[in-house]
């Protein structure tokens, strides 16, 4: 197994772009460093700025497996690392019992049979470490802030040694460390000890130009003029101090929604009928409706040229 090492930051940016992801210079540098220094990449930012997408695109660019661990409260070792397949173990036991084998062999042999690798259910972290692919896989640990802090302790050990010990079998160690991407929406602070092992990048909303590029790639059928107007309106909305400013994924949804309704040119009516794709809080919708939409549109027309 080998680990791909990019030549420079430009190569990363170009590689991701080929697969439909427009990384800012900062993000591309962070990815470049993470690949060359073989360190996990910790991405933090508002929901919907494209953190999870980074891992997906990385795996398709590097043509390697993507292993995803979605974090949630109560996530524990049996869900994240490995678990024994208890029902199959019990079946095996009963089968040995029924056929009379259990009386012939001693207890130790029977136990060894039960704790064989074939009864082991590998979960994402073990999968990533034990990956048999040609290239090292991308391990996405998504929304780590949703897991409880007990879980971070598991990760600490795994991210420093890339090895997992199973008492009944022995140790699994990665020959080449997986490419690790950890994302967080910052609903709580992740422990410093974990951050210290990673490279850190704060992902921002994309600027006007980059947003246009992203929407064009993700929604290629939408009229180019409309895309520019959408980016210009979204840019203004992010300045309106809403409860939840729209992220990139919302802009894309909005573009698709407008296109489906046959819009070629943004107008007040079109905004009002599709606003649910963009703003998910009633209060935010009221706020935008209360603004001078005409003025917003005029600004957008001017910006889009």
């Amino acid at each position, binding site marked *: 197994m080998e680990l791909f090492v990019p030549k420079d930051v430009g190569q990363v940016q170009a590689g991701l772009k080929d697969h439909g992801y427009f990384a800012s210079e900062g993000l591309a540098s962070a990815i470049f460093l993470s690949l060359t220094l073989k360190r996990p990449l910790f991405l933090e930012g508002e929901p919907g700025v494209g953190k999870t997408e980074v891992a997906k695109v990385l795996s398709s660019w590097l043509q390697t497996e993507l292993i995803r661990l979605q974090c949630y409260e109560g996530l524990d070792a049996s869900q994240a690392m490995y678990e024994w397949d208890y029902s199959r173990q019990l079946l095996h036991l009963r089968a040995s019992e029924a056929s009379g084998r259990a009386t012939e062999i001693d207890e130790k042999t*029977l136990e060894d049979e039960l704790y064989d690798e074939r009864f082991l259910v590998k979960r994402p972290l073990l999968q990533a470490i034990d990956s048999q692919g040609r290239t090292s896989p991308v391990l996405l640990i998504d929304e780590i802030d949703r897991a409880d802090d007990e879980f971070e302790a598991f990760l600490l050990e795994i991210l420093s040694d890339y090895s997992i010990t199973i008492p009944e079998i022995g140790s699994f160690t990665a020959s080449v460390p997986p490419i690790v991407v950890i994302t967080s929406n910052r609903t709580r602070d992740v422990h410093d000890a974990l951050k210290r092992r990673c490279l850190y990048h704060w992902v921002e909303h994309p600027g006007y130009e980059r947003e246009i590029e992203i929407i064009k790639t993700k929604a290629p059928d939408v009229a180019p003029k409309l895309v520019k107007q959408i980016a210009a309106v979204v840019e203004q909305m992010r300045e309106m101090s809403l409860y939840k400013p729209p992220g990139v994924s919302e802009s894309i949804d909005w573009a698709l929604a407008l296109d489906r309704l046959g819009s070629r040119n943004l107008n007040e009516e079109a905004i009002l009928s599709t606003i649910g794709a963009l703003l998910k809080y009633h209060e935010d919708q009221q706020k935008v409706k209360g603004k001078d939409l005409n003025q917003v549109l005029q600004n957008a027309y001017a910006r889009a040229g």
Partner: protein
Amino acid sequence: MPAPADLYKISTTPELLAQSFVTYLRAMGINVPIAATVVFHEALGAIGVQERNNVYWAGRTTLLSQPSDIPTYDEAFRTFWEGSMKLEIKEDTPTKEFIQVGNEEVELEENSEDRMAQDNVISLKYSPSEILKNKDFALYSEEELNEVYDLMKSIESIGGTRQSRRKITTSKQSVHPNLKKMVRSSFKTGGEPIKRHFIQHGEKTRNVVFLLDISGSMDSYARALLRFIQAAVIGRRRVEAFTLGTRLTRVTKELSNRDLDVALSRASQSIPDWSGGTRIGDSLANFVNNWGQRGMGRGSTIVILSDGWDRGDSEIMTEQMGRLSRLSHQIIWMNPLKASPGYEPLAQGMAAAIPFIDHFIEGHSLESLSDLAELLTE
């Protein structure tokens, strides 16, 4: 205070340069762990030092760990690498008077222990004397505040529990079998799972978020309540602390120092609007937008410690309290003024908030703090 940038620039090797930049960042107030310097140096080696932007991003990804440090980093980067020499080093903010501890601390402690020993009242486990128990915080001297700090620490029951998603083994019969244990124990019975074992949901302490009003009108209470909050922050996990004034400041990290003096001085340095005006509604909006809605407020107990004097728009107050009450488990409002005879919640902000409050309690004395502790344990 950092020396002028060119003093560091004498050194030329990349190691020294990386090291001096880190030293410079630390002097500017960014907490950079030692290991990060090594990674930074490796990163420079990998990415090259020819391009300005490469160096910038190498530093930003390896040396920082929170977005709030970015502006300081940008400034440090400018002065250090680009030598613009426009140094505006902030002087250390003078520490507030209220954190001073008298030299007779030891004596005081002995004294209070003494009184504790004599006290056999069981209704209030912390109370050394009836006088202190009901005394208004506004009338405390600095020495007395330090004295009652120990008592505040002993009000430790802070925090109710809720069901956790994490499963634990149990001896009681439940609907979830503990297969792991059953397989293990079936070896003894020749593969027959005779004895049944169970797991059930564990319990988790509920988040508690303290929002302390530090405007001018709360001045005489805030210094006592901040001590109480510090005791809570170091006392258990899942406690967050913010101050409300003209703006919102998160002080959890500052208060989590076990040394009261250090904690209070760090907190007061980080609070820019101490004893300033009040715009509780706006600060609450800030809290709900940036912290509460994202997760901190969900299912939490929110404790607001304020007299309810709000100079902002009362509609904002109504809107934000509504949002907060939909997010949280319960809202407790401690108002020190409530203890005064004939008090009516007429202040604009208070009146707007009342419909959304689960418990409206006094907050002027040690006894009221123990009432709070009881509410939190429910």
